[in-house]
């Protein structure tokens, strides 16, 4: 079985995000980058599937991103992924989901696939579009926000739970299928130390746009990012203090009426 897992290189959740001077990206100096946390659920599920199906099953990671993405690809390889495709081209700086889905579709088609796992969204720009556009481009079913994944014994279809408001929805999808993963699907493993030592020997096939048969970066669709703005600053906070709670409440009510003029 040919299993594809998608990876995105994103800033660490602990990183302090600052907008760059041009307002078209973040300041990357001093920021640590990691595998998109939702993609880790996809990697884990892909590895578990390989372990379950066995035979000549193979897990291939596909990542579109700058040169520095090698680091997160190696981490996936250290977790147990067999090999990787790294789509890297200067024309793909700050790509839209349309552009990325187009190049991913090409690269994945070249690799061949039975099942594709990815995160439900990138934790950086939170667009959650790539998997759906990719499903469309590959003309395969998609199941988003998966929390349970099982494969039928004859390997023909997947049975999944997907998280919806207030509960789970149980769905069935025929293979090949793309599945976007939600937290709770599994507990991603750590890269083991022997895994880290082996990662360097595994193959990363680097491909640029020309290698994938594109003359230029595919269209970015009909929306365009105009500018990045910093998080709006919260207003001044005023603490109401009094000996008795009752007095504090009275003072708060007075302030809401007279100063804030909201009641």
């Amino acid at each position, binding site marked *: 079985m040919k299993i594809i897992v998608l990876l995105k290189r994103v800033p660490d959740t602990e990183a302090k995000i600052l907008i760059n001077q041009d307002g078209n990206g973040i300041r990357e100096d001093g920021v640590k980058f990691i595998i998109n946390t939702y993609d880790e659920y996809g990697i884990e599920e892909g590895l578990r599937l390989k372990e379950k199906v066995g035979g000549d099953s193979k897990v291939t990671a596909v990542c579109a991103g700058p040169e520095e993405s090698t680091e997160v690809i190696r981490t996936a390889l250290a977790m147990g992924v067999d090999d990787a495709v790294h789509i890297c081209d200067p024309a793909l700086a700050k790509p839209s989901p349309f552009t990325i889905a187009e190049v991913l579709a090409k690269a994945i088609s070249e690799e061949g696939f039975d099942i594709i796992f990815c995160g439900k969204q990138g934790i950086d720009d939170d667009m959650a579009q790539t998997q759906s556009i990719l499903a469309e481009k590959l003309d395969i079913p998609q199941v988003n926000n998966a929390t349970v994944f099982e494969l039928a014994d004859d390997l023909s279809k997947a049975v999944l739970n997907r998280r919806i408001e207030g509960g789970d929805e149980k769905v069935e999808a025929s293979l090949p299928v793309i599945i976007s993963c939600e937290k709770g699907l599994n507990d991603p493993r750590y*890269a083991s130390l022997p895994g880290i030592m082996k990662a360097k020997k595994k193959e990363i096939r680097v491909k640029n746009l020309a290698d994938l048969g594109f003359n230029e970066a595919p269209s970015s669709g009909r929306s365009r990012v105009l500018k990045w703005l910093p998080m709006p600053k919260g207003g001044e906070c005023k603490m109401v203090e009094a000996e008795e709670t009752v007095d504090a409440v009275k003072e708060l009510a007075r302030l809401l009426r007279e100063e804030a003029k909201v009641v």
Partner: protein
Amino acid sequence: MEWTFTEEQQMLKDMVKKFVDNELRPVAAKIDEEKKIPKELIAQMAELGFLGIAFPPEYGGAGMGETGYCIMQTEIGRACASTATFIGAHQSIGSSGIYMFGTEEQKQKYLVPLAEGKKIGAYALTETSAGSDAYKPQTTAEDKGDHYLVNGGKIFITNGSFADIFTTFVKMVGGPNDGKMSVLIVEKDYEGFKVGKIEEKMGIRGSETSELIFEDMKVPKENLLGREGRGLLVGMKVLNTGRLGLGAAALGAAQESLKLSTAYAKERVQFGKKLSQHQGIQWMLANMSMEIFNMESILYRTAWMYDQGQNVTRESSIVKLYCSEALDRIVDDALQIFGGYGFTCEFPIERMYRDSRINRIFEGTSEIQKMIIARDVLHARDL
């Protein structure tokens, strides 16, 4: 000259940090309170390869050398000194002797399961009458043909209560090496082996420290480590690496102290200003940062030298001496910044303060380190 971690070393650091953040730091206070490292946590570390990181893959290790070991211990030391001590006793001093001096049979039989974490190791040197003056054991071994008959006991043995395999120092009685020291590999299941009293301690309470009692214990002759009567060499070589790992764990605790202190100083307001705006506090933070830079620099330079195959007797003593003393100054300043809160068990600084103190004592006191350094300086031809 190059001064960066390799790609693998960086990945190792990231991975251990993640493990520490998710698995170890959340239970560090509990490990201290319950005086026990959970068995499941040890099993998880074994599974990930932590317990044999420095040894080559052919002996069940991860092949990351002393530098890799130090990177791991630095990250673990940030969260839990008890766990760092457990690993140090198991791997750095409990297994290294077998790696350096063991025969191929001994390595296959003992080092492989130790490195894979299937067995736990310990280093049994200290005795009631042999502390700093360590190489005068009263525990005796008598040659009985196919085995040594061992009598005596050890104290303050880290992992002693649950380890499987002990690198044990004994004094030969009778025979050509009468009165000289040897090292034997002892299994906990040998008849005559008994675990004695488990110590109550001020710090590193999660690391179990116990007494061992040997009563007419028969140790097979093939369990002699190195040559008979040449135990001193084993002891000194093993402790050379042990001291480095100890410096690494101290570095981690120091880094964590600075991180916690800085965050607190930027938050806590006194006299209408944040602590961080008071110069007295800034000086403490500056000192901590300076000492951490020193610790880091000497530690990783020495680890690199060791991995290059250089002799690091003097340097590893310098690392041990400096890092343990610097950490004590750093946790003291950190506690001062936290003030009364730092003295309470609500904040990890209290535990880190208690945990720090042992570093100036075990694996050779500060005074012993100075003796080693001075001896090496006095014999040096390249000053």
